[in-house]
């Protein structure tokens, strides 16, 4: 007879871990107890030595799919003569070792039960178990128990209670557990029509509206979607016109069908194995997937692009909707441009009344928004574009512990926030573009919630060095010591930090502008060093951006800037060019920038005529799509010059007339531009390697969401003997800034 005392950390709450240990104890023949304590699980087991050993081995080896257990301690215990294995009540304590479980897709068991006409939860849209269902979006606070969630308002019926209390049931302590008798319900509303209540009638009314080509705002897990028939050009056009959202690509929900569930995907797209794997991931993200030219999708879904964002249904409600509708549905976040997704029926009806023609509500409150996560496959692996539902909060392990808890408030666009303590860092889901009241309110809520959920109080705040970012203003007013971090230092540190790297590396941080250490707007930088110690060793030739902030949505300004900078002009620029020129010459609202994103804008303006962008990144994205399939190496080389300060500068000037050469096909110019920038990047890397011997190169910043550029650059770097690092867990774009701020701000700890 031996006894062991175990402490298990990691993701062990909200995932059916204690019932699993109960079954494991039964299977291995040990006795004792298990309990939750402050985010950890503590267990005491006793029995024959081989039984106890089998139990201990099984704790990690046989854990349920959602669990991520870590055996923190395993010490000898004193046998107490336990007669059985019991699950004890939760202990008190700080939850700072807890994991907040993400919202999980409907598991196979629940789906089978939902489709079983004899099952109690036949066609129940909110079916779930310990292995699936909402988590992050319904938790008020830890410990994760039903009264601490938005399910508190749904008293369990006797049948559900019996399941909830039975340690051998797969719904034992499934906190969002519900059934049609006691749980959340659907309601369908449309202007001028009596509300349709009851799950089946509401669902039927919603499907009828979709079939009729209407746009329906439907409540999901982390917020509302705007849904419409993805095959109906008229429905898509009306959604776009009323939102308004003329060009930004729309995501599409495809039915889960076939042996691997991906028949619906293959009907519209040509997924590579990496796309298929990412689509089927438990996170059920949106995956940008190469679309078939003949796909039965309306033309306006992703204009100008070769990929469309696809997603499999992830909640039982979405499964029911897709099955009843029988085809792909546009499913785009229900929000106003750039703001966090809407979660509340009243707000959706009042703020989206112009675009939604019907509403599918339900009465399970969403405590905090979580947009769908977005991934793009680059170099054969899914790379995060947007952290969100199913993967949030994102948990990362730091290579070294931080001295005191730190909150990082992120950037202005694609804002996320991050919190770090000990060796743990957690990143919030995508919040959105700050500067709107709702963004600010959600930002502040998530700042408060993240600390409360993990029981960690930040003692300092890291923010972007840009004085005018909304989050930086908030940081200055919050009363804690503030650590400003330069934008591109944060990008570089995010990449180093997600790999736990502490050795020197060369990072190309290319994006659309951020406040640089010399007071100019960086965005095409080569940084050498490690977190806490970056040296700018390379950059693009700087240029003055006429109209400052306006350049972000008006690519013609970048084109004009490059033309003027090289002594030429560009007639196609709209407006009073003489006035702008006068301002440009006098330096009036014309900040100096070295941003690669703005070079892409200029190229898109010249090659594709995109003078105005209706969404962030439109020019670069369309330019990449336009380049697909063309031979690349026809553009003039980009000279590399060492400037007086010792900085390697790539001079894009030879590209300016070449990109404007209407005698060359757009495809050739688009591809040549990508190749020229990849070549410039390689030249910089070689020059820096020659100077200091560095061989490890990272690519980060929003520009490296561009698959073509990233793969060209990475292939050439590797062929030249460099080791190339790309993001795998944290987005390369500004959604990764908060994590980078953590890494950079705590490098000196």
């Amino acid at each position, binding site marked *: 007879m031996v006894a062991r005392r175990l402490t298990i950390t990691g993701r062990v709450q909200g995932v059916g871990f204690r019932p699993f240990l109960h079954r494991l104890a039964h299977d291995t023949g040990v006795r004792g107890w298990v309990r939750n304590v402050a985010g950890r699980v503590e267990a005491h087991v006793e029995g024959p030595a081989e039984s106890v050993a089998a139990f201990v081995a099984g704790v990690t080896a046989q854990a349920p799919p959602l669990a991520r257990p870590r055996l923190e301690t395993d010490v000898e215990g004193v046998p107490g003569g336990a007669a059985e294995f019991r699950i004890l009540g939760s202990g008190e304590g700080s939850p700072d070792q807890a994991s907040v479980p993400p919202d999980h897709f409907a598991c196979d068991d629940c789906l089978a039960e939902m489709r079983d006409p004899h099952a109690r939860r036949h066609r129940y849209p909110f079916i779930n178990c310990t292995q699936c269902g909402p988590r992050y979006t319904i938790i008020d606070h830890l410990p994760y128990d039903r009264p601490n969630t938005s399910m508190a308002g749904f008293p369990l019926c006797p049948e559900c209670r019996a399941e909830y209390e039975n340690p051998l049931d797969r719904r034992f302590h499934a906190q969002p557990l519900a059934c049609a008798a006691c749980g959340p319900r659907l309601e369908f509303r449309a202007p001028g029509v009596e509300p349709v209540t009851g799950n089946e009638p509401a669902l039927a009314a919603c499907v009828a509206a979709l079939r009729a080509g209407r746009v329906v705002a439907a409540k999901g897990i982390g917020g509302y979607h705007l849904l419409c028939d993805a095959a109906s050009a008229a429905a898509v056009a009306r959604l776009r016109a009323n939102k308004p959202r003329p060009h930004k690509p729309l995501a599409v929900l495809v039915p889960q069908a076939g042996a691997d569930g991906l028949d619906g995907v293959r009907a519209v797209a040509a997924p590579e194995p990496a796309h298929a794997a990412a689509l089927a991931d438990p996170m059920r993200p949106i995956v940008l997937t190469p679309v078939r030219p003949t796909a039965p999708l309306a033309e306006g879904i992703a204009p100008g692009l070769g990929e469309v964002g696809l997603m499999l249904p992830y909640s039982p409600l979405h499964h029911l909707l897709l099955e009843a509708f029988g085809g792909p549905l546009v499913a785009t976040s229900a929000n106003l441009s750039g703001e966090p997704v809407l979660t509340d029926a009243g707000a959706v009806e009042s703020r989206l009344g112009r675009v939604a023609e019907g509403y599918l509500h339900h009465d399970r409150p969403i405590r905090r928004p979580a947009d769908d996560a977005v991934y793009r496959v680059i170099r054969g692996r899914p790379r995060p574009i947007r952290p969100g539902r199913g993967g949030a909060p994102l948990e990362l392990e730091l290579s070294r512990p931080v001295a005191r808890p730190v909150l990082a408030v992120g950037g202005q666009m694609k804002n996320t926030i991050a919190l770090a303590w000990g060796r743990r860092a957690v990143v919030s889901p995508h919040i959105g573009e700050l500067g709107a009241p709702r963004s600010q309110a959600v930002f502040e809520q998530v700042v408060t919630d993240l600390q409360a959920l993990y029981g960690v109080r930040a003692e300092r705040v890291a923010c972007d060095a840009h004085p005018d970012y909304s989050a930086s203003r908030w940081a200055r007013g919050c009363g804690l010591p503030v650590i400003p971090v330069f934008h591109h230092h944060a990008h570089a540190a995010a990449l180093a930090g997600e790999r736990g790297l502490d050795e020197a590396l060369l990072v190309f941080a290319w994006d659309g502008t951020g406040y640089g250490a010399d007071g100019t707007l960086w965005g095409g930088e080569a940084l050498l060093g490690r977190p806490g110690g970056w040296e700018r060793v390379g950059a693009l030739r700087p240029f003055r951006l006429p109209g400052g902030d306006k350049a972000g949505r008006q690519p013609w300004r970048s084109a004009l800037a490059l033309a003027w900078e090289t002594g030429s002009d560009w007639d196609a620029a709209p407006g009073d060019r003489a006035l702008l020129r006068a*301002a440009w010459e006098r330096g009036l609202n014309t900040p100096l920038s070295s941003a690669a994103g703005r070079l892409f804008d200029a190229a898109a303006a010249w090659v594709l005529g995109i003078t105005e962008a209706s969404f962030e990144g439109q020019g670069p994205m369309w330019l990449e799509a336009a380049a697909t399939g063309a031979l690349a190496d026809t553009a003039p080389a980009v000279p590399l010059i060492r400037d007086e300060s010792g900085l390697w500068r790539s001079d894009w000037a030879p590209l300016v007339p070449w990109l404007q050469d209407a005698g060359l096909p757009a495809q050739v110019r688009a591809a040549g531009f990508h190749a020229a920038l990849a070549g410039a990047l390689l030249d910089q890397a070689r020059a820096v390697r020659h100077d200091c011997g560095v061989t490890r190169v990272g690519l980060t910043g929003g520009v490296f969401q561009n698959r073509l550029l990233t793969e060209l650059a990475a292939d050439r770097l590797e062929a030249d003997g460099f080791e190339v690092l790309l993001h795998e867990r944290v987005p390369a774009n500004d959604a990764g800034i908060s994590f980078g701020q953590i890494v950079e701000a705590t490098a000196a700890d």
Partner: protein
Amino acid sequence: MEFSHISLAHGNGGRFMRELITGLFARHLGNPWLDTDVDAARVPIGDHGEIVVTTDGFTVQPLEFPGGNIGSLAVHGTVNDLAVAGARPLYLTLNAFIEEGLELAQLERFLAAMSAAATEAAVHIVAGDTKVVPRGQGSGVYFATTGIGVREHGIELGMGRILPGDRVLVSGPVGDHGTAVMLAREEFGLRGDLASDAASVLPVTQALLGVPGLRFMRDPTRGGLATVVHEIAHATGATVRLQEPDIPVRDPVRSVCEMLGYDPMYLACEGRVVSVVAPESADAALAAMRSVGCPEAAIVGEVAAGRAQAVLVTELGGERLLEELEDDPLPRIC
């Protein structure tokens, strides 16, 4: 006068200075209460009112711009500060800081404009002081004015009186002054369609004072309309929501701002009034302003319970926070 330019000597307290003041300042600005031999004037006040005093410095560049110059501005600015406080301005004092080398003819133009503005507003400039600074230590001329006015009993105005539901109004298009001055400063060439709005707002404030339910008035000078509503929000702890389509902005101002990347909400006005009135008085306030030559006056927003924030609602229902102006706006787009 035997000189054509200001010299350092004109600020030394000797003869030259006396001649400058008596021969120029007093000639333009003289009145029964102005005594150039003393540093302070005793001024009579009304029987039933209270004294309101304000002072302001003027350093605008360029000194002359379409629609005004630093002289008229020095009067309008101080008169307007008194006017929006609910007072009737009576007297001003003037400080002039003149840079060595300023052309006398130009200085005279400023004083003429100043005189005209004062006459229009029925104020008297009753005291003054002149300093001359060495070449390179000034920008031609700086003025500082102090104003004294009276406010009748029973006029109670202030941000503290603002309540949720109140309406926010402006007396005319915003951003004219900031745009005109910026273009003139950068010597972008004359544009016939752009001029400063610099003017006395007394007719507007007097008209509004007759509207029951008037809570507060302010002239949106430096920092523009956005800065005033930001201040209101933070002083009252409420949300001020402006409707962008309702805010009057002249087309030339809009197009210059659009081209150069400026936000008219943050550009200075020198002849406008932002007022807050009880909801039931909003139409009366609008009519009162229109009756005194403000055809473009508009109800532009309202105060709502909620957190302290200034919000601009766009035509499409999007919302943008109007944050406090930073010194040097830099692009934030990444």
